[in-house]
């Protein structure tokens, strides 16, 4: 970590372009669980186990990771279940504070998650207004956006129903329409498109392209490699809490497909070799701040 390491091929990127900067952020969860009682346990041992039977374990979901995403990029995020993709997205939106490191962005990111239901008891119409207000619009602005959100959601006929009556696909359409109505600078979509039908996918693709043209930046987590190739300009592969690949969607999804094939056939050795290969080829990002100080922690 010395100047010698930094100096040789430092690429200075004007920060006007960087939309999201992940500066060696890591995440370790503290999880409470019920401790399993050993099968043959003496009475005394049972007493000595602290009475609550609740155990605290530490789970390293994400190892320190650095990444810079620029305006106009849409980044596909892939990885097997439990690899840390969603954790990374939660760090990007600020829903979780990283255990170490920091995440910076030019604007407040908007999250589009799987559990699309916002407030299940109230109607779709009310959810639209509520969502807009929660993003900081005034009531007048929310009313002005209302029609275009209804239009984008394509749910005109069911908006008077409470959200709990919606199918998961309908609910995610509604949330997508709400979330993108502000033209967010940074949008994070976490598997929210899986429930959508072909028509909705097409609308989503168009909307994402529009956002990108407006110099927004989109993160897209999906298990559908087709979707990633279709909608993204860049892809990253996260496995076991660490970044393995960062490149074009074609390269990354191709390599990932190979890996998934090995895993599916239980060729653990081949899979491990592939992981090792990616790890050695990966060009890691190291972030230095021009004035030696990281951005101020509070909003200006």
């Amino acid at each position, binding site marked *: 970590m010395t100047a010698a390491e*930094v100096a040789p091929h*430092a690429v200075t990127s004007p920060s006007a372009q960087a939309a999201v900067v992940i500066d060696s952020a890591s995440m370790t969860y503290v999880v409470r669980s019920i401790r399993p009682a050993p099968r043959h346990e003496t009475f005394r041992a049972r007493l000595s186990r602290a009475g609550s039977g609740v155990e605290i374990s530490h789970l390293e979901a994400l190892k320190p990771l650095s990444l810079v995403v620029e305006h106009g990029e849409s980044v596909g995020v892939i990885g097997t279940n439990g690899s840390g993709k969603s954790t990374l997205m939660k760090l990007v*939106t600020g829903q979780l504070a990283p255990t170490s490191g920091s995440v*910076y962005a030019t604007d407040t990111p908007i999250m589009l998650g799987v559990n699309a239901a916002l*407030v299940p008891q109230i109607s779709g119409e*009310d959810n639209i207004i509520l969502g807009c*207000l929660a993003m900081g619009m005034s009531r007048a602005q929310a009313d002005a956006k209302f029609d275009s959100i209804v239009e984008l959601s394509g749910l005109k006929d069911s908006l008077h129903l409470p959200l709990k009556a919606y199918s998961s696909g309908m609910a995610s359409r509604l949330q997508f329409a709400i979330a993108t109505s502000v033209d967010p600078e940074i949008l994070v979509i976490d598997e929210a498109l899986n429930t959508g039908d072909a028509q909705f996918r097409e609308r989503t693709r168009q909307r994402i392209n529009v956002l990108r043209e407006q110099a927004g930046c989109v993160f897209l987590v999906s298990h559908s490699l087709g979707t990633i190739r279709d909608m993204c300009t860049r892809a990253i592969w996260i496995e076991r809490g660490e970044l393995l690949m960062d490149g074009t969607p074609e390269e990354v999804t191709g390599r990932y497909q190979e890996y998934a094939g090995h895993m599916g056939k239980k060729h653990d050795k081949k899979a491990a070799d592939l992981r090792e290969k990616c790890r050695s080829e990966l*060009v890691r990002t190291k972030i230095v*701040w021009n004035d030696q100080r990281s951005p101020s922690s*509070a909003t200006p």
Partner: protein
Amino acid sequence: MNTTEDTGDSGTRTIALDRNGLIRVGARPSLWRYLRQIWEFRSFVLFDSKSRIAGGNSTNSLGQIWLVLNPILNGATYFFVFGLLLGTGRGIENFIAYLIIGVFMFRFTSSAITSGSKAIISNRAVVRAFSFPRATLALAVNVRELMVQIPAFITMFVLILAFPPLEIVSWKWLLFIPLVAVQFLFNLGLSLILARLVTRFNDVTNLITFGTRIWLYLSAVFFSIDRFADHPTILFIMHLNPMYCILEIARDSLLYDTWPDPNRWLVLGAWTLVLLVVGTVLFWQAEESYGQEK
């Protein structure tokens, strides 16, 4: 343990950045700015509380009628148990109205802090999707509880006028408005503290049920404090109970046509101020953590 820069020729790429224009994601603003943000989200607060009143009772077929029915049934139970069976009401002038005020006013606080303490955990989906000052959720719950109480308070007035003896309706009845305003702020302060605790330790929810129960028994809802006239210590402690102060102010002005003791206002005001300040600071300190799953 993790393989870093030492891996052969490819190594690392260093990116130098200016910090202009970048802000730390999810960062907690200064307290002053936080309060200003809450004010900027006032239409969110109002809309959230309004839209949920309609939605909240839609699962019961009697709907909003329960808002009024619930305290009436409660009052009837207490009247039966304490008034008739145990006779705690003996010697209390106008006991039915005394009890009605106790039950309705206590219920305002108990239901406000019970739902207020769950302001974050029952709104995870909204908290996850959008970033807005989270205290607005606790505020919205309390505004909602206030709006919900209005029909209940009207019922209360009708009931105490309906049961004999007839009360004198005087200008002192107007004291009820500042009283409810102060009680609202009191509830809000307590909700903010409890919401932070419940979000951190879910177990607290169990204690809140228990705590409000004890508080109910200790606040002279269905007995008179006069029975402790010989015990100055108990009397002193009772006078420090903010709920007792609320009930006493309401009863004095509505039932007995007397000006409430200024000490009651003083104690209640002090509690409210302390809870509000402590609650706001405590809640704001954990602002970055409310999105976390437990």
